[in-house]
């Protein structure tokens, strides 16, 4: 059966249960679905965050996620994957991103989900702006995100 790859960038929230069903309905070859959802935290470094505003580079964001999805599909025996990234204003407690990976066995699904998230954070053209009590500011990049992506590079 063909693998199912879904990539969406949208302002609207997503329904995790519905997305899992879309990946697994009618199939009996899937033994594992790993779900990662990223959620807007209400504080950072002791400062309250009311919301984030996500900006992206239309066209390139989709292309970059598709490229990493292809790499994940070729590297692990996945039966499908879903990546949904929200843009626009997202309040604390709301969903930001969803990565689902499906496979016959859990190891491939776990590894592929982690790989996709690490690469998304370091390479996909999205930028977060935080709303704090003192005003808004662009989120600084974390070197730990680059390090997390680098560990998947094959030597």
């Amino acid at each position: 059966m063909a693998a199912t790859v879904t990539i969406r960038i949208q302002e609207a929230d997503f329904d995790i249960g519905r997305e899992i069903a879309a990946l697994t309905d009618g199939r009996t070859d899937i033994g594992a679905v790993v779900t990662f959802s990223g959620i807007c935290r209400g504080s950072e470094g002791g400062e309250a965050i009311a919301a984030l505003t996500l900006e992206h580079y239309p066209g390139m964001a989709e292309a970059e996620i598709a490229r990493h999805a292809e790499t994940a599909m070729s590297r692990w025996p996945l039966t499908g994957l879903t990546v949904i990234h929200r843009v626009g204003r997202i309040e604390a407690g709301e969903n930001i991103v969803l990565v689902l990976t499906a496979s016959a066995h859990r190891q491939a699904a776990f590894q592929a989900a982690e790989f996709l998230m690490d690469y998304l954070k370091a390479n996909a053209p999205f930028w977060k702006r935080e709303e704090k009590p003192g005003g808004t500011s662009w989120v600084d990049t974390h070197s730990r995100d680059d390090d997390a992506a680098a560990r998947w590079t094959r030597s």
Partner: protein
Amino acid sequence: MKVKYFAWVRERIGKSEETVEPPASVRTVDDLIAWLAGQGETYAHAFETPRVIRVAIDHAHVQPDAAIAGAREIAFFPPMTGG
């Protein structure tokens, strides 16, 4: 060629995209950043620390020494913070 700016690069320059015609001596991404930085105060501010600026040519990440010949769209932005 068309250039696009995102996040604080866009805010500092005050526009999200424009068409530019750099001289023939501007051959690489590094050259283009240096040339753009000379286009006025807002540009100088946006490109004051060239090493933090990330660049994509036609939707693909490139290094500072990449050639710009043949590029349709070049984008400049800060390190990415998605996910």
